[in-house]
């Protein structure tokens, strides 16, 4: 853009000339220039200069037919004059302001005459050019006055309107400002008039079309547009520029004024200028979409106008310039765009795309066309050289006065004559001009702009393309460092996205760069990567024969093979295999051995991939463990490896595999290798086929054993060091993963391929100490249960060790750990570790008891004394169950065999045991009333569904309480005592008798039940009477089970429920003999006793029974006096023998609406067929008891 002249780049500014009174010129020019819009001034000190100025432009006009004077000229020799625009901006004023001092105006006649003469001359000068005139009277002093007459006379002489005659007073500040602004307005108005008149004058010519050459049409339109620009009428300017542009485009086929090449050059030059103006106007108006659309039309319409073949490069140069200029325009004006500028893109009605609004796009294309230009220029240069043309006077060729025209400047004596050129002359001139420029630098600059711009737009792929093209330029110029730097960036993008063909091309350049700069390592790396690219034989081989193909040649399988051979020829030092082409600097010698590192992200993984899988995830120390080493290569040809070194993190495990086919090369390095050397029959890597090798490694050291590197040695001085990978977590090969190919597992065993790891855990040595946990059956709740723990050495001496004891809830209720249960909440521990008791002699236990580190409810830490080989030590864990539940006991022993804890491994033995905790004794109780006596208890009348109701006992009536204890365990128990104890110290509200104290020690076999009968007589009416707690003392029966268990008696408590004591208003007693004899009558009495102070009405009825003959009233209503007893008496004769049901009596108390019927058991009697003969004894009570117990 800087190539364009200033007058094209900036909007035109009105020009006026100031004549006379030169001392005020500076102030006036400064003021006018700072006006909005600004006005430029030409300051002429005196009136004679104006004629020089104007005649100067006249003289120029005289040479060619002036458009102003010769509108009908049909054969103009050019389209636009180069200096026309400049002339109007700098030399042809729109207004001439004649400044006359007031002294002169109102002075003596001589002075006045001078004024008139000057004015007259001036008028004559400017009249032909239609330049406007303004007359300014300058007050020579603050008090000077100009007479009215002289003013009128002056105006008449000047033939100007009165408003264009201005008095200028520079001495009074307030009047100065006023007159300056007045002058500004006047000049602006006159200038606008001038430009409008001029524009209109030419516009009428355009409209009348009274000319017959399109050149004139273009020229006139251009002028009208320029005049419009002077007036800041952008819309009209744009319209006429466009008109000129279109007319010009039509001229291409019609005009034949100049030789063909030059004609085209001229048209293009004019079009460029017109287009530049149009673009500038559009972009200044922020009409970006229009500008872009215009530009597209512009280049599309001129792109095909290549012109004559020998001057093609001119066309491409021109095209490149168009793009460059538009890019620069877009870049400078893009700041003015609104940030949310949002055109609809890519749609049918607005076929513009994102990049067309970005300068980067145009820079890139400018570079592209510049490359075209260079190509054709080189062609043209070579042709001209072969033709042997000499640059005949190209230096005398200069641009002619018309835009886009060139002429030869001939010296004829004192004057210079412009002589038209022939096309051949012009071409040779253009070629010689073109040779002066280094296009490559220009191209790189353009591409770099584009590259940076695209990068900032995050368009990485476009940027990569630019980077690649830049790199190619650098490469062509031999600047390999820059080229490599760019190409590396580009290659990484292509690698990442898997564009193999593009990557191949880039790598080809990189390979050649490194070849030419002699860096062997990089050369081999790039070559290996190329050789391992997924390019198969059927990948579009034919379409890569273009000249665009980089130094690597077309991407094909055969090319890969060539590269492969070249690399391996180089590394093997075998010159015959290498391509004998400037490989002199590339050598691998013993002095500079080459070692390539391939890590997990290296692109060379496809050249060599090494996976290592341990067959076992855990291996034992000192025991050989198998590992499978798998190598994969995608190089096109088979690779023979001389030797493989496998390196582990435990360096004593390292080993080397030697290819037995190549022993001579391997043997050389044999000596300095690690201790272990294996030999393999063949180490040939076939393409895309795993080479699987299985070897055993042995580690003595516990911990992690990891394979780190697999180094493959190929040739005498070349090593590829490959970081080992685990098959299970191996990433796919970056480029090959997109290929549709056969994939095999790195190991023979597919399971190992999915799970194999390159690292394995070496176990600690096997413990040679036994840890024995013993427990006899389930533990009983309440007792201190002993679990014996024995540590017995079977080969290892224990230098120091400790036992860790943990109690864990089996049902997953959580660890009984001190973390979970705070010390305060002891109750949470249903099972508790009480302590550890040694079985050794007292004094020794004293010693080690100090070492006990910790005993908590569920966790214990006990140190183990020093033990020699085959010695043993044991202790007892004392555990108490508070609730019946199973518990897992974990005991782990960690010990050192050696005094040095750092070196000797700590060995762990773990044991666990599940111990059941059970209730030993189940205690239950029953309340019973005396036989055949039923008190009416009012609380029982109401039917109660709730079984949990407390039992009711009659006040002062004796009831029986039977307490039974059942042995639920599997071991015999011994009972000491069973008693009911008060809970508190209150006075007892009942009397309690029991049937006598036990039992020195009662044996209770498993499943057996022991009962004890108490008699309870409540003495106080109470709704809730606490009877106390049953205390039972028991222990395991040690005679039957030799168990190291409880010493003392264990107390199990059972709380009796509360009872209700109430007064019974009525008591019914049934009285009958204990037995009856068939046919013998007996007496059956029902006694109803009224305990109340009230008269009780009682109904009773008696049901007949078939087994008895009965006498007495069947039913009646009777009244029982207070505190008295009514007896219903019956005589009964049994008719049937056996256990018979006595006739059932039903008693109903009317007051309480309570019905009573004796139970079946109470109303049964046994009828003997004849008088039985009993052995009478005294313990009749006891028999009765046993009957009750059943």
């Amino acid at each position, binding site marked *: 853009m800087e190539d364009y002249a200033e007058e094209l780049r900036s909007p035109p500014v009105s020009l006026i000339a100031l004549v006379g009174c030169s001392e005020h010129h500076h102030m006036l020019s400064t003021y006018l220039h700072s006006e909005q819009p600004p006005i430029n001034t030409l300051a002429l000190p005196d009136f004679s200069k104006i004629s020089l100025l104007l005649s100067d432009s006249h003289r120029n006009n005289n040479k060619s037919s002036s458009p102003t004077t010769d509108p009908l000229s049909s054969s103009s020799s050019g389209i636009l004059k180069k200096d026309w625009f400049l002339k109007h901006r700098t030399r042809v004023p729109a207004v001439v302001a004649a400044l006359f001092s007031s002294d002169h105006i109102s002075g003596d006649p001589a002075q006045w005459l001078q004024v008139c003469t000057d004015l007259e001359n001036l008028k004559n000068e400017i009249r032909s050019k239609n330049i406007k005139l303004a007359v300014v009277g300058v007050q020579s002093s603050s008090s000077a006055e100009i007479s009215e007459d002289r003013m009128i006379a002056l105006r008449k002489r000047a033939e100007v309107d009165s408003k264009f005659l201005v008095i200028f007073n520079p001495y009074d500040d307030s009047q100065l400002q006023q007159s300056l602004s007045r002058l500004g307005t006047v000049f602006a108005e006159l200038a606008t008039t001038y430009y409008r008149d001029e524009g209109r004058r030419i516009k009428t010519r355009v409209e009348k079309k009274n000319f017959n050459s399109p050149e004139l049409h273009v020229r006139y339109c251009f002028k009208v547009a320029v005049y419009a620009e002077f007036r800041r009428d952008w819309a009209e300017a744009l319209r006429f520029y466009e008109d000129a542009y279109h007319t010009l485009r039509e001229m291409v086929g019609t005009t034949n004024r100049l030789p063909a090449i030059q004609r085209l050059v001229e048209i293009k030059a004019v079009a460029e200028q017109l287009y530049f103006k149009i673009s500038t106007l559009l972009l200044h108006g922020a009409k970006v979409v229009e500008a872009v659309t215009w530009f597209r039309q512009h280049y599309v319409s001129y792109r095909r106008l290549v012109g004559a073949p020998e001057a093609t490069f001119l066309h491409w140069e021109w095209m490149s310039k168009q793009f460059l200029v538009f890019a620069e325009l877009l870049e400078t004006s893009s700041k003015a765009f609104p940030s949310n500028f949002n055109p609809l893109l*890519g749609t049918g009605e607005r076929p513009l795309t994102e990049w067309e609004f970005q300068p980067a796009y145009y820079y890139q294309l400018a570079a592209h066309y510049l490359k075209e230009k260079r190509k054709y220029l080189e062609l043209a240069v070579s042709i001209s050289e072969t033709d042997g043309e000499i640059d005949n006077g190209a230096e005398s060729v200069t641009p002619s006065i018309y835009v886009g025209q060139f002429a030869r400047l001939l010296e004829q004596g004192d004057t210079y004559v412009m002589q038209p050129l022939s096309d051949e002359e012009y071409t040779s001139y253009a070629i010689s001009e073109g040779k002066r420029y280094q296009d490559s630098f220009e191209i790189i600059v353009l591409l770099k702009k584009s590259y940076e711009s695209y990068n900032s737009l995050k368009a*990485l792929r476009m940027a990569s393309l630019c980077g*690649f093209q830049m790199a190619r330029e650098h490469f062509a110029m031999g600047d390999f460092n820059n080229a490599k730097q760019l190409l590396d960036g580009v290659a990484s993008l292509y690698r990442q996205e898997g564009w193999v063909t593009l990557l191949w091309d880039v790598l080809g350049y990189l390979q050649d760069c490194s070849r030419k700069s002699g860096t062997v390592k990089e050369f081999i790396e790039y070559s290996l990567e190329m050789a391992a690219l997924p390019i198969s034989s059927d990948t579009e081989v034919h379409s890569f024969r273009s000249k665009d193909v980089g130094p690597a040649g077309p991407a094909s399988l055969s090319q890969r093979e060539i590269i492969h051979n070249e690399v391996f020829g180089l590394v093997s030092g075998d010159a015959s295999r290498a391509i004998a082409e400037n490989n002199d600097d590339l050598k691998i010698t013993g002095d500079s051995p080459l070692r390539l590192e391939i890590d997990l992200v290296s692109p060379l993984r496809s050249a060599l991939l090494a996976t290592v899988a341990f067959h076992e995830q855990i291996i034992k120390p000192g025991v050989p463990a198998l590992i499978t080493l798998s190598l994969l290569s995608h190089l096109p040809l088979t690779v023979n490896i001389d030797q493989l070194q496998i390196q582990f993190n435990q360096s004593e495990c390292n080993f080397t595999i030697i290819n037995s086919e190549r022993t001579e090369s391997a043997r050389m390095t044999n000596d300095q290798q690690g201790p272990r050397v294996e030999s393999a029959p063949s180490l040939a890597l076939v393409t895309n086929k795993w080479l699987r090798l299985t070897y055993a490694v042995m580690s003595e050291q516990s911990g992690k054993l990891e394979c780190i590197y697999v180094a493959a040695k190929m040739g005498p001085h070349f090593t590829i060091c490959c970081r080992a990978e685990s098959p299970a977590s191996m990433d796919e090969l970056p480029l090959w993963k*997109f290929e549709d190919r056969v994939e095999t597992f790195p190991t023979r065993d597919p399971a190992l391929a999915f799970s194999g790891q390159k690292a394995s855990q070496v176990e600690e040595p096997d413990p040679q100490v036994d840890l024995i946990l013993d427990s006899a059956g389930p533990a009983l709740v309440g007792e201190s249960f002993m679990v014996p723990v024995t540590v017995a050495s079977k080969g290892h001496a224990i230098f120091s060790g400790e036992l860790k004891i943990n109690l864990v809830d089996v049902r997953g209720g959580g660890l009984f750990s001190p973390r979970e249960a705070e010390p305060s909440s002891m109750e949470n521990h249903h099972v508790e570790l009480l302590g550890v008791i040694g079985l050794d002699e007292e004094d020794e236990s004293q010693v080690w008891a100090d070492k006990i580190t910790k005993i908590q409810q569920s966790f214990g830490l006990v140190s183990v004394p020093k033990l020699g080989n085959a010695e043993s030590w044991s202790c007892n864990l004392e555990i108490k169950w508070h609730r019946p539940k199973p518990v897992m006991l974990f005991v782990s022993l960690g010990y050192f065999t050696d005094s040095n804890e750092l070196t000797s491994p700590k060995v762990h033995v773990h044991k666990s045991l599940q111990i059941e905790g059970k209730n030993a004794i189940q205690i239950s109780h029953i309340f019973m009333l005396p036989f055949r006596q039923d008190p009416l208890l009012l609380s029982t009348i109401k039917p109660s569904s709730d079984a949990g109701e407390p039992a009711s006992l009659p006040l002062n009536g004796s009831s029986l309480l039977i307490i039974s204890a059942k042995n639920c365990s599997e071991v015999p128990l011994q009972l000491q005592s069973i008693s009911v104890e008060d809970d508190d110290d209150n006075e007892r509200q009942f009397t309690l008798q029991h049937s006598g104290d036990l039992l020195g020690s009662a044996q209770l076999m498993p499943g057996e039940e022991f009962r004890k009968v108490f008699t309870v007589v409540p003495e106080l009416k109470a709704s809730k009477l606490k009877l106390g707690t049953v205390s039972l003392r028991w222990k395991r029966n040690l005679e039957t089970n030799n168990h190291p268990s409880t010493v003392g008696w264990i107390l199990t408590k059972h709380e009796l429920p509360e009872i209700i004591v109430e007064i019974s208003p009525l008591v019914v007693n049934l009285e009958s003999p204990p037995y009856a004899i068939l046919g013998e009558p007996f007496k059956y009495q029902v006694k109803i006793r009224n305990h109340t102070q009230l008269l009780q009405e009682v109904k009773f009825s008696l049901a007949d029974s078939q087994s008895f003959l009965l006498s007495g009233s069947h039913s009646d209503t009777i009244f029982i006096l207070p505190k008295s007893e009514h007896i219903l008496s019956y005589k009964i004769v049994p008719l049937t023998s056996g256990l018979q049901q006595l006739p059932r009596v039903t008693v109903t108390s009317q007051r309480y609406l309570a019905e009573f019927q004796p139970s079946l058991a109470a109303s049964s009697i046994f009828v003997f067929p004849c008088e039985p003969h009993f052995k009478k004894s005294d313990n009749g009570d006891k028999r009765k008891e046993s009957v009750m117990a059943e």
Partner: protein
Amino acid sequence: MIVCVAVVGHQNNPLYIQSFTEADDALKLHHIVHCSLDVVDERVNNPKKSGPMLNETFLGLLYPTENYKVYGYLTNTKVKFILVTTDLDVKDADVRNFFRRFHAAYVDAVSNPFHVPGKKITSRTFADRVSSIVKSFGLSSTV
């Protein structure tokens, strides 16, 4: 005339790329297709710029190069189709129609149980079908 069609996968890797020119500019076409992915990304990441094209698979003209026009299409599974043509006056309807048929062919090709998703499409049937679609491009509008 269509000079190149391409299927581009999730990681912007080429799944299928085929040029249909006699000239030796396959590499250039590869570059063009690759660069057009930038525009696809731009359109996908700034959907508001696309305005009414929301939820549309057809991405429209991606960018014009000096001799080619590049059109894009984005499937629901984020697989991109790129079309490079030398025709300077292309009807949107034709391109849409082309992409619709191309998409159908692609769906059939990847429905092959032996095709591994994400790998290159090597099916010969697909290639034949694509070339017939390419040959018939633009004919529908003239008929």
